[in-house]
């Protein structure tokens, strides 16, 4: 591993300054669960690692109707916060299954997003929650919808000197429910063969879907917002038939490859099944959120 220095800034400005100075030769660092592995594997070299865990904006978890998750907040803080867990079960689905307990002590949803893996468990639930990524850079702050954050496998929209500060998850509407499931061959520790996050908001009647959002993991070059399947849900009755059809539509939006984790055919099938299953869970949550 190419030797790098360790920088632990106390302020956002300081962090941005170091990142800007080194450009591509520096990276922000939160849980380290991806970047250290990639460095050891020779995927890239760095001259500096910028630990965000001393930066207050990156480490706060703030629930105030909406939820602000600092980019370096580890998974366990999210799922062990009972108020957050009660309000955002769809995020908990992901936060509690990334890696094992050891990984959850370190890994953050922000890091999961920046790592921009197509199979990331954390990104799809953020997408269906209409989460906004708060980015700080030399030119100040900008806000990016999560579904636009990843640009290719391992690539994201961050420019020189920019870092992800926090994720802002809007307060769920009344009648909103979300869920995430992934399929893995083992019961823990695997990377998703496919994953689906679904969200729906029930209309006044409690039986019709006012709006819905579906996002797909590990079936494309980035986590995908399934626009057609999402649009399809609006106005439809919240029934198993609707969910199954949404799954069929979502599967047409997936562009999976076959690899060591599963075949393309299998992934297409999984999108259908997981869409159906997550919509059913989301419905249950929506009904208890009215």
């Amino acid at each position, binding site marked *: 591993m190419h030797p790098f220095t360790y920088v632990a800034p106390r302020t956002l400005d300081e962090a941005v300054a170091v990142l800007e100075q080194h450009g591509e030769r520096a990276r922000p660092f939160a849980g380290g669960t991806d970047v250290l592995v990639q460095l050891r594997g020779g995927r890239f070299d760095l001259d500096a690692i910028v630990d965000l865990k001393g930066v207050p904006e990156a480490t706060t978890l703030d629930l105030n109707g909406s939820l602000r998750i600092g980019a370096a907040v580890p998974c366990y803080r999210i799922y062990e916060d009972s108020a957050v867990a009660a309000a955002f079960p769809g995020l908990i689905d992901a936060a509690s299954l990334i890696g094992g307990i050891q990984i959850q002590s370190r890994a953050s949803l922000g890091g999961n997003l920046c790592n921009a893996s197509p199979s990331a468990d954390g990104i799809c639930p953020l997408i269906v929650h209409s989460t906004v990524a708060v980015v700080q850079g030399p030119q100040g702050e900008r806000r990016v919808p999560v579904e636009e954050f990843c640009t290719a496998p391992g690539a994201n929209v961050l420019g020189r000197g920019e870092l992800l500060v926090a994720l802002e998850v809007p307060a769920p509407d009344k009648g909103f429910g979300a869920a995430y499931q992934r*399929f893995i061959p*083992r*019961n823990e520790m695997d*990377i998703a*063969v496919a994953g689906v996050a679904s969200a729906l908001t029930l209309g006044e009647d409690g039986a019709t879907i006012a709006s819905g959002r579906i996002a797909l993991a590990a079936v494309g070059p980035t986590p995908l917002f399934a626009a057609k399947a999402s649009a399809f849900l609006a106005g439809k009755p919240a029934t198993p038939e609707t969910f199954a059809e949404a799954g069929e539509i979502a599967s047409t939006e997936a562009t999976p490859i076959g*690899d060591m984790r*599963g075949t393309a*055919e*299998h992934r297409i099938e999984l999108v259908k099944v997981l869409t159906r299953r997550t919509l059913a869970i989301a419905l249950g949550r929506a009904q208890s959120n009215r």
Partner: protein
Amino acid sequence: MTTTADRPAQEFKVVGSRPIRHDGVDKVLGRAQYGADLKLPGLIHGAVLRSPYAHAVIKKVDVSRAEAAPGVFAAISGDDMPVTAPKMVDMVEEVTNLKWSSQRVMAHGKAVYRGHPVAAVAAVDQNTALEALKLIEVEYEPLQAVISLEDAMKPDAVIIHDDLVGDHLGEKVSPTNVAEHTRTEFGDPEAAFAEAAHVLERTYTIARAHQGYIEPHSSTAFWSPDDKLTVWTTTQAPFGVRSNVATVLKLPLSDVRVVPMEIGGGFGGKIGLYMEPLAAMLSRKSGRPVKMTMDRKSVFDATGPGPGGQVTAKIGVDKDGKIVAATADIRYMAGAYPGSSISAATAGIFACYKVPNVRIDAYDVVINMSKTAAYRAPGTPQATFASESLISELCEQIGMDPMEFHLLNAAEEGTRRPDGPVFPRIGNVACMEAIKGSDHFKSDLGESSDGKLRGRGLATGYWNGGGNRSSVTISVNDDGVVSLVEGNPDIGGTRTTIAMQAAEVFGLPAHDVHPTVVDTDSVGYNDLTAGSRTTYASGQAAIEAAKQVVEEIKKRMAMIWETEPENVEFEDSVFQNKVAPDQRLTFKEAAGKLGQTGGPVSKTGTVNVRGSGGGSFAAHLVDVEVDPETGKVQILRYTAAQDAGKAVHPSYVEGQFQGGAAQGIGWALNEEYYTSPDGVMQNSSFLDYRMPTALDLPMIDAIVVEVPNTNHPFGVRGIGETSIVPPAPAVGNAIADAIGTRLYQTPMNPSRIMEALANKRNGQNGH
């Protein structure tokens, strides 16, 4: 749970109890010293540059820039290794070409697998060594990689070794990638098939699977200026490493001392040489002790998994379901050098059955992947996946209960194993009966929820194991505690199981025997910790040493009691003068009188145990639940029955059954080398290799069957390996029971199950 068939007359005090293992406290405290834990004055760290190509000519290696880098002490390439001429020799692991044994640890002229060492450096610390590897210039000319049986065996195949002379049924053949074709034959299978009431033939494909030990290989060497070489290594075979290092480095055998470190799992994969000669050469060049520890990726890329391959099996039965004939065609991919346990596969594939007419062809084929190594019952789980899956399907077709089929056809004492030898007393039937009597077998499979499908599978398995040479030295201390010195690295509690057998002779508590595993200069020759032999054979050496100690103490007591040694009896840990029965001393009391009666008592037991006494049979039963929408398989319940002869330490016997079952389940469901067409393993990490986690398995019920081994004084059988043999077919049979169609390939992973279900819907069978 233990079931005993024909309990022997022997009653035991220590054998059969469950003492805490002697090395346990060190291991739970984190104090035990494994390979990578070694610290030595002046220690430096090595790293290996590995070929990125599976098959390439190495035109040039230049290590000079690396050698000149700050912090680097030495660098070597194939040019620095002693030149070895082609010659067939008996290495500890196999009979092989000496030139290959050398080139396998360091390529010279040609790289024949991805991960093949090409150069190595030693530096002040690990990272400096790794960074220096980047300064080594290598010029490769990539060649087409041969990575499948089809590619390797086709008429115009790319030849991996120009100097490989194949033995094809006794004919010498070259050039070829088929190192060996063997055939064993009894009777007339064709005639028997012609008259059989039912015949079924199927072809199965089995993936390469890695032993998956958690501790990566780690070796340290110091080549002293007086040409004495010390090697500290994590190995199952310290004496084997001694002899093989001496051969490869052209040193006198006795100038090499091997110190076995605690070993973090091996399962057969830590027998051969890997980095020991490289560390030695780097030490020689640098004058420092050099430690080399593999990273996990290199363990996958460059150490031996068990071979994958293809097995076609055919069985014919008469109208009653009795086997009339069986044939098999076994083709294993040995990796980059010959040697894939085809003879064990031949011995094992039909060993559980009486087969009057049999023919087994077996092929050992080289391909451009790392040389396979022994993996727990080497060669046998693969072949047994074929035979036991075939029998399950056959039973379905003839409408016979698999348990009844097994019992009807079970090999027993006097049955001729398909490759020739006749079985002595064995526990094959007893294991089946144990499963038949288990709560699991009698239980209902139960209903699943959410449309999931349940199934139950049964399979049997056999592994012979071995005996061979062991030396154990026992010394009596003044306080009556004895020290026991042995040479088998303790891979799973064998210090204790060996010590317990000595304790049984002495009538002492297990903890009054203090076992130590020592280096190759400090004990007589010991064969390796493998082949299910350690408790069985080294235990016999311990018994032998203990008996000699008792005889010697009898002489000493005779001196004290002024009688003849024949008059001194030893029973229940008491020496007694049978002429004057009030003259009696306990073992501990007697031990205090040795100094004054001729000095210390220390005796060595050496044995060369012939064979295993018939091996250990097992029967496994498993319930699975399959989600037909995703292909996910969950193991619901698992029971493993196996013959231990006499379980020395039942907890560690159960542990062997459970551990083997878990590995077999992994092989069945997910484990494989997922390889690109150019021979690069894609899933070379624990993340994507997918060994079972705690959450993937249920409790594994272990039934210890005890059919005493007539080849061991206490009836002990070697039991370490058989448990990996039945799981893959048992799981496969359970999946077939659940989903109503069969998979003929491991791993039976979710994508494949979905494919099988789709084929079933389309009316296609997968074979």
